[in-house]
């Protein structure tokens, strides 16, 4: 990992007798998209409230490029962009007016503000509806406007708290595209979600959060390897029965097992992507292949493995 932009160390927050976040620690590198995964009530929103300086931690620390982030640390807070889970916009104003208001609070003004507003409106694909009142928007458009405000002041760290909750598939794709594009610009992003497929698509690394603490942090592959899950290459077709496919695959790195099935053959491997061409070439010599599917162990399975519960329980 490159140098850490954000360091969260032993972060703790209690509300009465309930500990919402319990000694949480992780880092986010410059240019990295970091996923915070966990079910509802796992402490994601409380965590990002402390990271963004809205909520004072009871213990632990948050530093952004070495500068402590607290509710009074205005300079550090000015380098963070927050996209809250809820639509945090004035519905009786247009998106442009919302952007002007929140942009001014962030210290932008004049032509620089207007230019930046036009840029973010393009990014979230709302340029043609920018002067409509937010109350007239669909749920997906409101979500995109919500994101636009968070990224307006070109923060060093953008925090998106479940930005696709309750949106239609088209808007969801637009949002994911926008986040992907932001990640590719070198912006550091924290993305909280309980949709594993979003984390798998967007995040360089993920932290699995449950009951206020991190169960595991790493790349998807690292985490999956850690719990012993394997990739599977499912090859459908007709193969000569007398062929010993296991022997055929001898020498391919990371083969864990070969099973004949009614539809063809399934191969368990450590890393399907790296050996796929080799495996198909060898098997193809002994019959005709009609279909190939690769299944990688996912974060859903990982969460189940770590907690004994499905993510959306």
């Amino acid at each position: 990992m490159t140098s850490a932009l954000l360091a969260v160390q032993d972060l703790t927050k209690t509300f009465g007798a309930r500990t919402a976040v319990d000694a949480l620690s992780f880092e986010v590198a410059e240019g990295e998209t970091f996923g915070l995964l966990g079910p509802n009530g796992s402490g994601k929103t409380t965590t990002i409230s402390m990271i963004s300086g809205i909520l004072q931690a009871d213990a632990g620390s948050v530093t952004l490029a070495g500068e402590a982030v607290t509710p009074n640390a205005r300079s550090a807070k000015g380098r963070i962009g927050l996209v809250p889970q809820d639509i945090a916009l004035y519905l009786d104003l247009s998106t442009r007016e919302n952007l002007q208001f929140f942009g001014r609070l962030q210290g932008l003004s004049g032509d620089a503000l207007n230019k930046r507003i036009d840029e973010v409106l393009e990014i979230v694909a709302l340029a043609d509806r920018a002067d409509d009142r937010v109350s007239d928007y669909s749920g997906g458009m409101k979500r995109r406007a919500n994101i636009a405000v968070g990224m307006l002041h070109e923060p060093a760290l953008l925090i998106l708290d479940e930005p696709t909750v309750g949106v239609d598939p088209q808007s969801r794709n637009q949002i994911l595209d926008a986040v992907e594009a932001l990640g590719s610009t070198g912006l550091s992003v924290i993305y909280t979600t309980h949709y594993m497929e979003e984390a798998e698509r967007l995040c360089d690394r993920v932290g699995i959060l449950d009951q206020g603490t991190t169960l595991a942090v790493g790349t998807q592959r690292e985490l999956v390897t850690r719990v012993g899950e394997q990739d599977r290459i499912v090859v459908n077709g007709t193969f000569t029965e007398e062929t010993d496919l296991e022997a055929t695959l001898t020498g391919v790195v990371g083969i864990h097992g070969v099973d004949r099935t009614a539809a063809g053959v399934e191969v368990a491997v450590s890393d399907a992507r790296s050996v796929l061409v080799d495996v198909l070439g060898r098997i193809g010599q002994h019959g005709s292949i009609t279909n190939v599917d690769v299944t990688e162990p996912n974060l859903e399975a990982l969460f189940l493995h770590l907690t004994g519960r499905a993510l959306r329980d």
Partner: protein
Amino acid sequence: MGHVLIVATTELKRRIRSRSALITAIVAPLALAVVFGNLIGGAASGGGTFDIGIVDAGGTEMSGEIAAAVLADDRGSEAVRFSSVAESDAEQLVEDAELGAAILVGGEGEMSVISSEERAISSQIAEAVAHSIAGSVQSGGQESIPLGSLPLGGRELSVMAYFGASMSGLLLFFTMGAGPRSMMEDRDNHTLSRMLSGPVAPGAILAGKVLAAAALGAFGFVVVWLVTTVMFEAEWGDPLGVFVVLILTVFAIGGISLFVGGLARTPQQAETYTTVVGFLLALLGGAFVPPVDTPAALRALSRFTPNGLSLNAFSALNADEASLADLAPELLALIAIGVVFGAFGVQTSRKLTAA
């Protein structure tokens, strides 16, 4: 200060766009002032002047002197006019609304009043004059005939100005109460969190909200002042004095509204609290019934309300041509109310932005 102004201007834009704010700040006080002003004006014999007939009913030297003294009193105001009336005509004149009421002076100086239930204020004026004449007779002189202490502050008072000020003061609670209410709405719709996640001090957000409410409240008050002056010929008094009293009234009521609103947990609760406190203080302060027409205890109590202090200052400006120095006690009291309740209000509102 930059963030305060940014919050205030956006708040003003939103509230002006929402027409209800303009109704509360301008239309409602103006309409109420006109309604109340005309109700009271209608009670007088016309044009906001109360015509009281004086009848020498006793026909004695004493009753004749008393009647003459009242009729000749050059402190009589344009608001109250006395005229000599024959006893046989008095009742009919009152019934025909030619007179607001009539005072009958008996042979031994005793008084009685002919009045109409439809003209309650004129009746009260006549009762008050009769009472004071009787007091004057008992004290052996006529100097104390208190033509300067009649109802509506007892002065040469513009009814429309009085109710313009009183209704503006009442509605100010609703306009100013919108400041803390707006903070709660921002909390509920998450825009407050978004602001707090940026480089903005919580106090700047509250100050911006209150500044916007105060600007709207003051603007509404000024509009009522100008409209009643231009359209209804209300005489408020020295413009500088009126402006100072107006601003300090906004300040004092703003402080109370911030405090009361800050006690609430929800916008609905804040609105209820503000309504109750606003009406109570306006009622005690004489917004609906001038303090002079209320029991002594209530009159005393009105001096501890921002509405009462404000109305007293406005009355002094338009009736007594008082200077700002003359109004120092009222002005200082309004400042004190604003400072004390405003300080408590800031404390009670802190829970909204507590990290």
